[in-house]
């Protein structure tokens, strides 16, 4: 007992200083991760409130709660905030930032000051987006399609674009920092084939962050230039091509989906291995699958324009390439399953999230094959089927992985254990609430309900009521962890250094880690996921 009591006073990254200055000017990757965690959570709440409002509106076929114009602004704000201020930064900027140096045995990222700058840039971008929200909102949808966004919309498009543009630099710098860190900062003996798959996933993600984000930046910049100076290159009245905008936009925004899901896959890989007490099945294939997804992800953007006037030939090629993504994705799912086979599985909260992830990712992925098929896409394009599909990936999978990761590493991050009973309750609530919210939307979409309308024919009401009811359960499921994790900061039992008996380097330092991560830089002599782990 006394050793645990001592732990409490051990010097760590949280208790070395309590001043605001020590947080706002920190270059410690762990503290910056916490800064991201706080700001990203606030954005998540904001985006969630918008979603709750339009879900309430959709309880009835007519408009009762908000006017259609407000409805348009609500789903736009929901999309912009959730995509760029929650999903993109969530796992990389919080868990990646916190864990990559710990996992590879480094004292910090390659460029600690750039890391802090990235957070400030992120907040500056967030500020602009927030201004856009309070000065009347944006009604273009998060996709900013031209010519509506560039010529006709009377809402705060420029403020929102500046926000997204600025935040893009935060993504680029974070990705750059990760790439250089993984290349150059690995501890002696930490070879590429010994890297945790979480790190491999972040490496693949970082490549996308660095190579895709600038495309979005300049593309949105061109809309802003058109609105402010009249320099329009997408204006159809002068021979400009609005579909070119769609091509450029999706050249970023499709890979962006992999920015959201690849880190989640990394998290799930760690959790499944730990709670099955087995080395991950087919390590090399899982690592290569991350890179394959990143590379192929760059070649599929055209599947968003099957009905936008793309040539049949281009459509066929993009459809085929989109099917290809299914291969590395399936490799991962099968390898997770194979890892669990004959494993010594325990169903702690993180594992529940990981299993939920596999389930939801499989549904989201398989319905992705539907929408990647040319003929079926003509039927379901711009319907709730697509909405359900991408929410299964971006919310179902990515958020499950994020929360699973937060629970899994919470003892390391905070030095405290969360309440296990509440953790399991929330994980189950989220899984059920999510399916109740989005599964009916597959049916709605297949029956032909288009997305982005405030009203719908009365025969769709039952399914919409189910969806809204599910959203309330989902909201409760999201609020629970927020409450009990905060509670656990003070009241949770103190965590040991390696509560899950996991194999990674991050578990070999104390919980929470000291500011310099390791007393002595570790010499790595073992492969990743070596079980059983000797407790010291």
């Amino acid at each position, binding site marked *: 007992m006394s050793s645990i009591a001592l732990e409490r006073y051990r010097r760590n990254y949280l208790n070395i200083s309590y001043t605001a200055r020590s947080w706002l000017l920190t270059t410690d990757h762990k503290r910056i991760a916490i800064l991201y965690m706080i700001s990203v959570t606030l954005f998540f709440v904001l985006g969630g409130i918008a979603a709750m409002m339009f879900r309430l509106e959709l309880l009835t076929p007519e408009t009762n709660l908000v006017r259609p114009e407000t409805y348009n602004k609500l789903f736009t704000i929901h999309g912009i905030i959730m995509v760029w201020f929650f999903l993109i930064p969530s796992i990389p900027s919080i868990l990646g930032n916190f864990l990559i140096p710990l996992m590879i045995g480094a004292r910090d990222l*390659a*460029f600690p000051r750039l890391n802090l700058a990235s957070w400030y840039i992120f907040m500056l971008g967030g500020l602009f987006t927030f201004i856009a929200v309070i000065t009347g909102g944006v009604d273009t949808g998060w996709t900013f399609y031209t010519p509506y966004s560039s010529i006709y919309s009377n809402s705060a498009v420029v403020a929102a674009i500046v926000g997204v543009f600025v935040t893009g630099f935060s993504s*680029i710098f974070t990705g*750059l920092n990760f*790439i*250089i860190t993984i*290349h*150059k900062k690995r501890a002696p003996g930490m070879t590429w084939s010994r890297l945790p798959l979480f790190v491999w996933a972040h490496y693949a993600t970082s490549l996308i962050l*660095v*190579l*895709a*984000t*600038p*495309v979005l*930046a*300049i*593309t949105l910049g*061109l809309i802003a*230039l058109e609105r402010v*100076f*009249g*320099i*329009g*290159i997408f204006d159809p*009245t*002068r*021979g*400009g*091509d609005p579909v*070119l905008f769609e091509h*450029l936009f999706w050249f970023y925004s499709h890979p962006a989906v992999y920015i959201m899901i690849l880190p989640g896959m990394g998290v799930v890989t760690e959790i499944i291995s730990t709670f099955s007490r087995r080395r991950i099945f087919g390590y090399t294939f899982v690592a290569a699958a991350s890179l394959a997804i990143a590379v192929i992800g760059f070649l599929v953007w055209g599947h968003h324009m099957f009905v936008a006037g793309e040539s049949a030939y281009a459509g066929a090629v993009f459809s085929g390439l989109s099917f290809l993504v299914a291969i590395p994705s399936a490799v991962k799912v099968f390898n997770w399953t194979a890892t669990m086979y004959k494993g010594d599985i325990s169903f702690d909260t993180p594992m529940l999230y990981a299993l939920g992830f596999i389930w939801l990712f499989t549904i989201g992925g398989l319905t992705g094959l539907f929408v990647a098929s040319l003929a079926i896409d003509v039927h379901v394009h711009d319907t709730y089927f697509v909405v359900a599909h991408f929410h299964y990936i971006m919310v179902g999978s990515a958020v499950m992985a994020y929360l699973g990761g937060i629970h899994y590493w919470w003892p390391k991050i905070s030095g405290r254990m969360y309440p296990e009973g509440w953790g399991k309750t929330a994980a189950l609530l989220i899984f059920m609430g999510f399916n109740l919210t989005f599964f009916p939307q597959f049916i709605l979409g297949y029956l032909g309900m288009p997305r982005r309308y405030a009203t719908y024919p009365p025969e769709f009401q039952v399914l919409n009521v189910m969806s809204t009811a599910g959203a309330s359960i989902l909201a409760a499921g999201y609020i629970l962890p927020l409450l009990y994790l905060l509670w656990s900061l003070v009241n949770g039992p103190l965590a040991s250094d390696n509560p899950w008996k996991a194999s990674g380097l991050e578990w070999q330092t104390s919980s929470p880690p000291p500011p310099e991560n390791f007393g002595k830089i570790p010499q790595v002599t073992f492969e990743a996921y070596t079980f059983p782990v000797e407790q010291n």
Partner: protein
Amino acid sequence: MAQSVAKPVEHLELGEREDIELNSLGMWVYLASEIMFFGVLFTAYIVYRHAYPQVFAEASKFLDTRIGSINTLLLLSSSFTVALGVNATQRGERRLSLMLLAITVILGLGFLGLKFLEYSHEIENNLFPGGSFNYPGTNPDQAKLFFSLYFVMTGMHALHMVVGIAFVSTVGFLTWQQWITPQRYAPVELAALFWHFVDIVWIFIFPLLYLVA
């Protein structure tokens, strides 16, 4: 100043060497990102030139090829001087390095000055696509696309020139302050890398916009 004694690069301490590698690798990755940034504009250019080749050829005649050529010359020379500057820094020739960096900045400023002149002529002649656009040639609508691309591409390039000049000036200042030494030359190398990149972008912009007539 014991520090300013020239030390061949090969004999750098391990830590310093790693630092330089880290920083220049970081810059290369950043430049990859920049390539994608400009890549969008070049893509748009390809799409529209392919759609309206005659219009682009005609509109290109309204650009000032003389200023464009002089500017190309200025930039090429500045790439040369900045490269010599890095070399001089590594060899510990501080004064020479300072001079070369200063020439680089002056050449860059010269480029921007001429660009400014060129822009003001074009705006006077109502070739700026916003507001009072008044194109004397045929197909003014599609020519507007050409001039939109012209102003965005050269504008973004000029913006990068401003950053590059600030960057080279800063490392020049650090050289003057003797903060930069033959052991600690990474910032000069980074500034030069960035400078070369901005230069290369111009090498593509110049023929595509000025010489397609």
